């Protein structure tokens, strides 16, 4: 049959089926339009459709199972005994059946001896097929019967009737939580009220070593105005222990059937050992369901559901029902953590947090502080706001340390958070959080953290985490997205293992923006708890430092950082304003002073300020920061920079640099400053190169660092490496003008003047020179070189430098070097002296600069070096 014909049959078949039966004939008539054969085809198919009944509806394998083997015709529901009302079972008179399910059949009955109502539960006989199974059942039931708690359904008796084991338990007049919820949501107070009782029940059982294993709304009874009761403690284990070899198999299977799968914890699904924390997970699902009217994962397809439970973060409850308190959401999310280690560790803690949720805040504060240190609860953790938030993500790094790497050299790149709102006004928060995470992680000596500069190259790009990780040569990459809401932010973060692209850790956080001050201590201690296993006390101090309690101050700080990172004249000036405001809001905010010091230091580099303007400010700010927090590596680095370049106190500078590196070995600039501010000036080139290599490991994509690496080789006299390094720098970013200028100076050292001129021209163009200007200028140099050789070139250089100096374009030191190049020692020394008086920091490099070769050996030059503190 051809495809067209088949399609036609199909179309008419469905059209006829969709039509009202009374109109079917007409539809057929119209559709077939005289095509009798088509009509007969469809009619016969329709007839068979009507007769299909259960044809193929039972899967082949299940059919096979049912019809083979020896069944026990008397048993249903897994083979539990059946009784009708009025039957006498031991001392009980059956009043009626309450329900039947995978766990057997339950009857309402009267205890004829004690005259009270009871529920009799007959377990599926298949659970107790032999003596050992029966014994196990009795043992479990006995353990459960020892539980005596107002929120646990009491077990009165474990007995056997005509070979059918059963349990007699408290008869509860009420309905299950499942019926109670039925797709609706409950309000926060009710959830708290119910949740506390369930948690207390679990807590009582756990303290006796009984794990429920099957907490779900169907096992929880809500009794009118009375207490909530949790049923069936430990019974699920009977199913689980049936097939001792592979608990997963029987568990997933039976749970799929009994509808428990959505409440199963990841470790349960994986067939791992379960403990109290499995119940905590299930309680999280129950709380979730009460809050949102649905379960966290709703996939219809069971493998998809399993996958979600194992790997996906649940949708945020507050997004589904904005009426529930955010605190409740935190409690739920903490309970639903994939890794049991990250969950609440005890049910009691959930009860405490649920109670606090509704209690006045002063009480909750007291509770927080009076609690033992061990388990800092999620509420405190998640209520933290931005500075804390940055720290929160830090934990991910520790997950990484704990779980993935055995290799002692660990490394991570934190990619900029992707801002889903794309709102420019919130950008500073987004970037600030990323930076906060980088900063915090950077302080951990055992971890190599790629610096901000290199990771921000990926900002706004949908970069593949694994590929980026490979580029940056790290083991793990943290990626995340942020969404800004009116009252806070939501962040979802993911830690990716670079070697295979797998997710190591993933989690969503939500933070209200309003609650900055309280957050500080709470978060610090939560983090410390997390890190305790790994960190020594010095590390702990590092983490506990330098943030602020003042949310306004922190936001101002973030804005300052944002502008600082623009690295423009205007950006630097703006950042100073923000940092200053931040210190006004919180005069003890150490990081804000570091920001200020950074801004003055960067301002000097960019020529926004003269050294005399900026250095004292930078020094004051860095000093103030260190008074507030002596362990700030960044502040030491800036102080070192000032001591080297402004005070010409090289030994002092060295101390600061070493301190900075000790405190914050992941701070790339500390290595750069140490190389450029001490080692190279002192002629310790090998060490300078090694230090620069460390800086580049941390910030491999930084143009400035790569460029300075080239310079370090040049000053060390290794021209070949220098050329390679400059070429690499230019490959990395061909639009970075300084690289062309530095490369040019390297090229002149190896006699490649024409190529040097080319590079200078490129650099000039990139710096904003007009093309005709740049080419005229290049032509002048070329002519000078071709007619006068290197001397002609340097003469031209002096001429141009003098002209530019008149126009205010070049600095004192440039003139000194131009004179030195043409061998005019007098003038060169004169200008060097001026540069010294101006405190031009670059003067510390004169000893190694090839420009000043002609001055070497001159006593006046030696005297200058001595005054700067450089060895002759």
């Amino acid at each position: 049959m051809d495809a067209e014909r088949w399609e036609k049959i199909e179309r008419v078949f469905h059209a006829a089926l969709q039509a009202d039966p009374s109109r079917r004939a007409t539809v057929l008539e119209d559709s077939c339009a005289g095509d009798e054969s088509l009509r007969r085809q469809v009619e016969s198919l329709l007839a068979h459709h009507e007769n299909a009944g259960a044809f193929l509806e039972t899967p082949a394998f299940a059919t096979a199972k049912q019809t083979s083997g020896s069944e026990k015709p008397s048993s249903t529901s897994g083979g539990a005994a059946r009784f009708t009302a009025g039957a006498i079972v031991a001392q009980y008179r059956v009043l009626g059946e309450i329900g039947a399910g995978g766990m057997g059949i339950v009857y309402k009955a009267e205890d004829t001896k004690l005259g009270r109502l009871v529920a009799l539960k007959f377990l599926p006989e298949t659970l107790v097929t032999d003596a050992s199974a029966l014994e196990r059942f009795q043992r479990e039931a006995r353990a459960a019967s020892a539980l005596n708690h107002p929120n646990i359904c009491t077990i009165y008796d474990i007995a056997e009737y005509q070979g059918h084991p059963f349990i007699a338990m408290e008869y509860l007049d009420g309905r299950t939580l499942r019926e109670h919820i039925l797709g609706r949501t409950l309000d926060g107070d009710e959830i708290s009220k119910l949740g506390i009782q369930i948690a207390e029940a679990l807590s009582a059982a756990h303290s006796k070593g009984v794990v429920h294993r099957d907490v779900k709304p169907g096992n929880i009874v809500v009794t009118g105005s009375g207490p909530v009761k949790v049923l069936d403690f430990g019974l699920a284990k009977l199913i689980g222990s049936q097939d001792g070899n592979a608990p997963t198999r029987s568990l997933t299977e039976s749970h799929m059937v009994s509808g428990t799968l959505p409440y199963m914890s990841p470790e349960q699904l994986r067939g791992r050992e379960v403990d109290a924390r499995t119940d905590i997970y299930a309680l999280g699902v129950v709380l979730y369901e009460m809050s949102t009217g649905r379960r966290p994962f709703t996939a219809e397809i069971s493998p998809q559901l399993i996958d979600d439970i194992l790997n996906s973060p649940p949708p945020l409850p507050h997004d589904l029902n904005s009426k529930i308190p955010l605190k409740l959401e935190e409690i739920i999310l903490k309970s639903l953590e994939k890794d049991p280690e990250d969950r609440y560790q005890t049910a009691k803690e959930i009860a405490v947090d649920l109670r606090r949720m509704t209690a006045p805040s002063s009480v909750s504060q007291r509770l927080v502080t009076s609690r033992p240190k061990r388990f800092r609860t999620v509420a405190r953790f998640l209520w933290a706001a931005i500075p804390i938030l940055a720290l929160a993500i830090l934990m991910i790094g520790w997950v990484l340390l704990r779980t993935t790497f055995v290799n002692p050299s660990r490394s991570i790149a934190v990619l900029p958070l992707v801002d889903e709102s794309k709102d420019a006004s919130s950008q500073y928060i987004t970037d600030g959080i990323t930076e906060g995470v980088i900063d915090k992680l950077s302080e951990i000596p055992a971890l190599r953290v790629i610096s901000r500069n290199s990771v921000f190259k990926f900002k706004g790009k949908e970069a593949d985490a694994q590929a980026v990780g490979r580029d940056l040569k790290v083991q793990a990459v943290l990626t995340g997205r942020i969404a800004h809401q009116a009252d806070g932010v939501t962040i979802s973060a993911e830690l990716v293992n670079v070697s295979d692209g797998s997710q190591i850790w993933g989690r969503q956080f939500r933070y209200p923006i309003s609650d900055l001050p309280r957050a500080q201590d709470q978060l610090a201690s939560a983090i410390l708890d997390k890190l305790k296993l790994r960190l020594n006390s010095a590390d702990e101090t590092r983490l506990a430092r330098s943030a602020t309690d003042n949310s306004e101050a922190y936001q101002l700080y973030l804005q300052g950082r944002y502008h600082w990172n623009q690295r423009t004249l205007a950006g630097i000036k703006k950042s100073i304003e923000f940092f200053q405001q931040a210190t006004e809001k919180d005069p003890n905010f150490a990081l804000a002073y570091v920001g200020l010091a950074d801004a003055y230091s960067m301002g000097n580099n960019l020529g926004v300020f003269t050294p005399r303007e900026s250095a004292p400010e930078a020094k004051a700010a860095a000093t103030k920061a260190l008074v507030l927090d002596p362990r700030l590596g960044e502040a030491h680095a800036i102080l070192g920079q000032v001591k080297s370049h402004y005070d010409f106190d090289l030994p002092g500078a060295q101390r600061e640099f070493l301190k900075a590196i000790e405190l914050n070995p992941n701070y790339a600039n500390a290595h750069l400053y140490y190389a450029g501010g001490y080692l190279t000036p002192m002629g310790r080139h090998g060490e300078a190169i090694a230090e620069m290599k460390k800086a580049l490991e941390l910030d491999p994509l930084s143009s400035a660092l790569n460029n300075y690496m080239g310079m370090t080789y040049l000053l060390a006299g290794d021209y070949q490496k220098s050329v390679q390094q400059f070429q690499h720098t230019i490959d990395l970013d061909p639009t970075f003008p300084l690289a062309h200028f530095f490369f040019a100076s390297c090229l002149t050292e190896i006699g490649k003047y024409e190529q040097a001129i080319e590079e200078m021209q490129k650099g000039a163009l990139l710096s904003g020179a007009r093309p005709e200007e740049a080419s005229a200028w290049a032509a002048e140099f070329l002519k000078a070189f071709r007619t006068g050789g290197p001397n002609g070139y340097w003469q031209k250089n002096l001429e141009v430098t003098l002209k530019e100096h008149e126009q205010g374009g070049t600095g004192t030191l440039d003139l000194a070097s131009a004179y030195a190049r043409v061998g005019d020692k007098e003038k060169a020394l004169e200008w060097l002296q001026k540069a010294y008086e101006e405190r031009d920091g670059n003067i510390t490099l004169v000893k190694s600069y090839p420009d000043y070769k002609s001055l070497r050996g001159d006593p006046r030059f030696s005297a200058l070096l001595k005054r700067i503190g450089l060895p002759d």
Partner: protein
Amino acid sequence: MTKPVEHEITELLQAWRQGDEHALEKLTPQVYRELHRAAKRCMKGERDGHTLQTTALINELYLRLTDLKRVDWQNRAHFFALCARQMRRILTDQARARQSHKRGGGAQPISLDVAPVVSAQSHPEVLAVDGALNALGKIDPRKSQVVELRFFGGLNVEETAEVLKVSPDTVVRDWRLAKAWLLRELSQERLDGC
């Protein structure tokens, strides 16, 4: 032997998904063996007392055989399709073996490993459905696959839709027509040779 089975199967699944047919060749016997073993264990009554679901069986197999951290739902869909196919083979192979046994054609001894999991007598439909399904496959491969996934793989409508990358509605419609067609085919009432 060095690699754990779940890694191997995960890798094969991924390779297959990326179009490597050799991977499928390697994968098929493994899945056949594992599925067979699971089905047999199941039939021996090791898990008597639970309603048996083919999907549950496959799910367990899946949980056991694959490295969950490294596979995604796409792999799973493929895995399910593969399992449905293998389940069909297992059941028809057994039914056939049984028949030849009955006819006295004991030429092919049944090795321990392929010992029957299902009694063919209890399942006379299987061979007939299998044959009719082959015929349907020639006319409309997708409908034949819908039946394979649902009847032999035990998948529900949503799962089938996911595997075939069509809407659940389409699955329902395909299923309806395919059943009518197969039933007619099995009742030998053929019209116009189709």
